[in-house]
């Protein structure tokens, strides 16, 4: 068969890959739907811990999965989907926070009192707790970026130090040292606040 015949045959015939492509796309869609069901909540909490705004956090989750949709052909190459997704949403929320540079919504004491769980507490206790949480969050905001990021991620009980290191793209020993520094700084800041009152 000459070269032109091969090209002609290739142009006219229905390629088998077309059927395979359709099947593959459906499989990827199903896999993506499973990922949404499984990790949307966790991603929301990660996004909310940084942005502290429900609408922004939800937007960040949607953007995460839209990015995954664009690169869904590489889903099979991902080893740990959870950490991979958390890393994506983490980068998105950091980028958003950097661009917005706005004060998180829940720095308002009233908003914190509304958002945080308060079962079995009186109205006064709720207000007092909300004030305390607002002060703590203000101290967290005053931490250096690296220390603050590790401290926020370490609050997620489902994330190990290895996974935090993977999300931040640093070594596990760096995570430990940064967490140590962050806690030292937080203790100092909170002591300073107590002494002022």
């Amino acid at each position, binding site marked *: 068969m000459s070269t032109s015949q091969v090209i002609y045959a290739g142009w*006219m015939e229905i*390629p088998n890959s077309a059927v395979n492509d359709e099947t593959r796309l459906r499989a990827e869609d199903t896999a993506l739907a499973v990922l949404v069901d499984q990790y949307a909540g966790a991603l*929301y909490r990660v996004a909310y811990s940084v942005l502290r705004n429900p609408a922004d956090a939800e937007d960040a989750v949607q953007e995460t999965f839209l990015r995954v949709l664009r690169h869904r052909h590489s889903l099979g190459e991902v080893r740990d989907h959870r950490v991979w997704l958390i890393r994506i949403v983490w980068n998105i929320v950091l980028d958003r926070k950097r661009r917005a540079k706005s004060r998180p919504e829940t720095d308002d004491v009233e908003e914190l009192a509304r958002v945080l769980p308060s079962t079995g507490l009186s109205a006064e206790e709720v207000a007092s707790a909300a004030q305390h*949480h607002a002060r703590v969050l203000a101290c967290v905001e005053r931490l250096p970026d690296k220390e603050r990021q590790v401290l926020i991620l370490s609050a997620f*009980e489902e994330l190990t130090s290895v996974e935090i290191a993977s999300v931040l793209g640093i070594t596990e020993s760096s995570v430990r040292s940064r967490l140590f520094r962050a806690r*030292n700084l937080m203790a100092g800041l*909170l002591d300073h606040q107590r002494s002022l009152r």
Partner: protein
Amino acid sequence: MKSTPHNSKIPCSAPEDSAGDETLRLISSLPAPHGLEDRVHRALRARSDRRGRVLSWPRRLSPQNGWMRTAAAAAIVFVVVGGGWGVYTRVGHYQPSNVIPMPLHMPAAGHFSSAGAMRTPQTLPGPVVVHPLTARAAQAKRSKKPITTLQPMRPAGSGSALKPAAEGGAAK
């Protein structure tokens, strides 16, 4: 920070401020809003549909069919060749002409028309302006050749402004 099987590797010997950790844990354990997954599913579906509208063909018209591909190729060739032929026949060929087309003089709006009259530049030899002294010298040389010259302007009241340099040439 609470030690769990997951994060047991994170050191707990650091100066721990339980209140700070408690606040962050509270924030990080807030439940996701109801229906978040559904909204994400909808957003993904909307995005997929938007892309699919371009790619999804009816099965009969699918570009995977051989005859459909041939027909599409033939239609493209027909349109391109037909379009080219149409342009070729309508535009015609350029033939150089010996006649130089004159520009049309369109009367300006609100003005009288020129009734087709053309402005013609003055091509005849006009009056030769010669300095009076030079003219007299030349006249003396040629003695009888009449030369028409213009004299310079004289002050007002001193007679006519223009006077022929050679009286013989001016007087007839």
